[in-house]
C-alpha cells in the first residue's frame, strides 16, 4: 500500500493561509492530508512529523519571507526528507537572487506572486492526485 500523501502550506499572514487552505481543501480528496503552518519552526516540525508518521510529503507551498525563516530554507529541509517533493514559492514580490539561486540548485515547480491565480494552484495539485 502506497504511503498517504500530504501537502504543506506555509504563510505567516493568516488571511493568506486560510484562503489558500480553503482553496486547496476544495479540490483535495480526503485521502490527501493538508497541513498549514504559519512559521518556519512549525513547518520543520510538521515535515519531520510526516517523515516519522510514514506520510509522503508531495507538495510544499511556502511564502518566502517568514518571521523566523526563508521559504527556501523550509524547502531545503523538505527535500532532505522527501527528495521527490514538489516545491512552490509564494511571494509578495518577484524579487531576490536567493530564490533564483535556489531554483538553479534545487529546481522549483512554481514561483507564484501574490495575488496568485487559482488555476496555477490547480495545475500544481492535479498531477499529485493521480
Amino acid at each position, binding site marked *: 500500500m502506497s504511503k498517504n500523501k500530504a501537502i504543506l502550506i506555509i504563510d505567516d499572514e493568516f488571511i493568506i493561509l486560510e*484562503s489558500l487552505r480553503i482553496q486547496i481543501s476544495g479540490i483535495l480528496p480526503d485521502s490527501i492530508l493538508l497541513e498549514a503552518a504559519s512559521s518556519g519552526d512549525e513547518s520543520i516540525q510538521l515535515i519531520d512529523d510526516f517523515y516519522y508518521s510514514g506520510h509522503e510529503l508531495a507538495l510544499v507551498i511556502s511564502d518566502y519571507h517568514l518571521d523566523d525563516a526563508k521559504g527556501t530554507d523550509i524547502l531545503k529541509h523538505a527535500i532532505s526528507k522527501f527528495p521527490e517533493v514538489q516545491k512552490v514559492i509564494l511571494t509578495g514580490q518577484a524579487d531576490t537572487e536567493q530564490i533564483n539561486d535556489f531554483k538553479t540548485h534545487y529546481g522549483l515547480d512554481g514561483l507564484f506572486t501574490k495575488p496568485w491565480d487559482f488555476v496555477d494552484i490547480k495545475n500544481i495539485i492535479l498531477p499529485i492526485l493521480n
Partner: protein
Amino acid sequence: MFQLDETDTETKAFIRENLKAFKSFKTEIHNKSKTGKSYWLELYIQPIYNEKGIPEGFMAIEIDITDRIEKEQLIKSYIQEIESKQAEITVINENLEQKVSEKTRDLELSIIQIQKSQDEIVKKEKMATLGVLIAGIAHEVNTPLGAIKASADNLDYLFSTDFTRIINNLSLSDLKHALKMYAQLNLINAPSTIVQRQFAKQILQEINLHFPENENAFVLSKELAALGFENLTEELQLLLQLDSCQEIMKMIKVLLNIQRSLKTINEGAIKSSKIIKALNVYSHGTDQQEQAPFNLKDSMDNIIMLLWNKIKYHASVKNNIPENITLTGYEDELAQVWTNIMNNALQASNNKCAILIDYTDTGNEHIVSIKNDGPKIPEDVIPKIFDEFFTTKKRGEGTGLGLNIVKSIVEKHDGKITCESTELNTIFTIKLPKKMSSKKIAILAVDDERIILDSLRIQIEKSFKQEYLFELAESAEEALEVIDDLVGEGIELLLVISDYQMPGMKGDEFAATVKAKFAHLNIVLLTGQITEEKSVDLLNRNIVLKVLQKPWKEKDLLDVIHSLVANV
C-alpha cells in the same frame, strides 16, 4: 564809411536805415583789419546838425569790444558743449536705467529659478524616498490582495462546483439539519494552525473513544478542527451517527468557507486601503501651500506602516507619541523627516534594530526623539551627517541629500535637529516650536458711552502683548449677539467688561444671562451706581469676576487681564 565785411546783414540794414533817417543809434559791428585779424567794435552814432537844424553829418564813437565778444562766444560754445554733454548723459542715463531694470528682472528670474530648483530637489528626494519604500509597500499590498483574489476564486468555486455537487447528494431534511447546525455555530474565526492541531488531537481521541469503528477518524478530526471545533460536541456525536453525516458535514464546511472567504475579502480590503491611505502622508504636499494642523501620532503610524515590510521580520518600532498631539506644518515634508531617520536606522542595522519614538511637550516646543539601537555613528561623521552630498551609503543607495533635506525641512518649520550617537544607541532629536496659539483671543467691552469704550481700548492695547480682538458693544443686547458670534467662530473670549447702568438690560442681568449660557466666561463689571450689597452678591454667586468702581484704576483692570492671559 565803415568796414562791415564781417557784420551780419541784419545789422547792416539796421545801420543803413538809421543813417538815412539821421537817427542816433548804438550797435555792434564785426570787422577785419588789413592784416586779416577779426575785431569787434561797439559803435555809437550821433547825427550832427547845422545851425538851421538840418543834419549834415555824423559823429561816431568806436569802442573795441573784441575781447568781451570773444569771451562771450567762448562761454556760449562752452554752454553749447555742456548742453550737448547733458543730452548725452540723459541718453546714457536712460540706457542705464533700462539696463538696471533688465538686470533686476534677470536676478528676480534667477531667484525664482533657484527657489524652484530647491523645491524640485525636495520633491525629487521625496520621490527617491518613495522609490525606496515602494517595493516594500507593493509587498504589503500584495498580501491582502492575494487573500482577496484567492477568496473570490474560492467563492466562485464553492458556488459553482462544491455547492451543486453537495446539494445533489443532500435530502431536504439533511439540508435543514446542516443549516440549523451552521446557524448555531460561531466558528467564523478559524483557529491558528497550532491550535487547530491541538483541537484535532482532542477530537481524534474522542472519536476513537465514542466511535472506535470509524475508519475515517483521522481525516475527520482534522476537518472538524479546521472548522473550528475544539472537541466532539453532543451535536457532532449525534451527527456522526447519521448515515448522511459526510454530506451534512460538507454542507456545513461549504457554508462556513463562504462566510470566512467573505470575511477575508473584507479584512484584505481594509488592510490594503489602510496602506494606500498611509501613502497620503506623502501626497498632501503636492498642493499644500500652507502649513496645516495634523495629528502627529497618526502621521507617524502611517510612516511605520509604509516601512512595515522592513520592520516586521527582525526590527521593532514603538510609537510613544500620545494620541492627541496636533502639529501645525507641512505634513508631507515632515513625513520625509520621520521616514528618512527611520529608514537610515533600518538600513544601517540591516533591518535589525529597535526604534523608539518619544514625544515631549516643553510648553513652547514639540520635541520628537527617534532612538534606535543600531550601530554607532562614528564621532568624526556626526558633524557631517547634515551636510549636502555627504553619504556613507554605497553608490546608488543614497543621494547624500537625505539628511541635508531633513535639516532644511526642520528649519523651514523654525525647528532644530540634532543627533547623538553612542555604542548603545543613536538619537535624533527634532525640536519644533509651537505656533502661536492659532486660537484667537478676544476681549469684549460693553458700555453705552462711547468715551468709556475708547478709553478701555487704549488702556488694554497699551499693555497687551498678545494678538487679540477688541470687540465693542453699546448695549447688553448687542453684546449677547457678539458673544454668540465669537463663540460660534471658535474664538476664545478672554473677558467681558461691562458697564452696569445701561439703557435696556442692566449689567447684572446681562452678566447673569451670559453666565447661564457660557458658565466659563469671565465678566468684570464697571460701575458707579451699584450698591456694596449687590456687588458682594454678584461676586459670591460667581456671576462676575470683579466689580470695578468708576473711575477705575488702569492697573486694577490690567491685573485682571494679565491673570487671565497667564491661564490661556
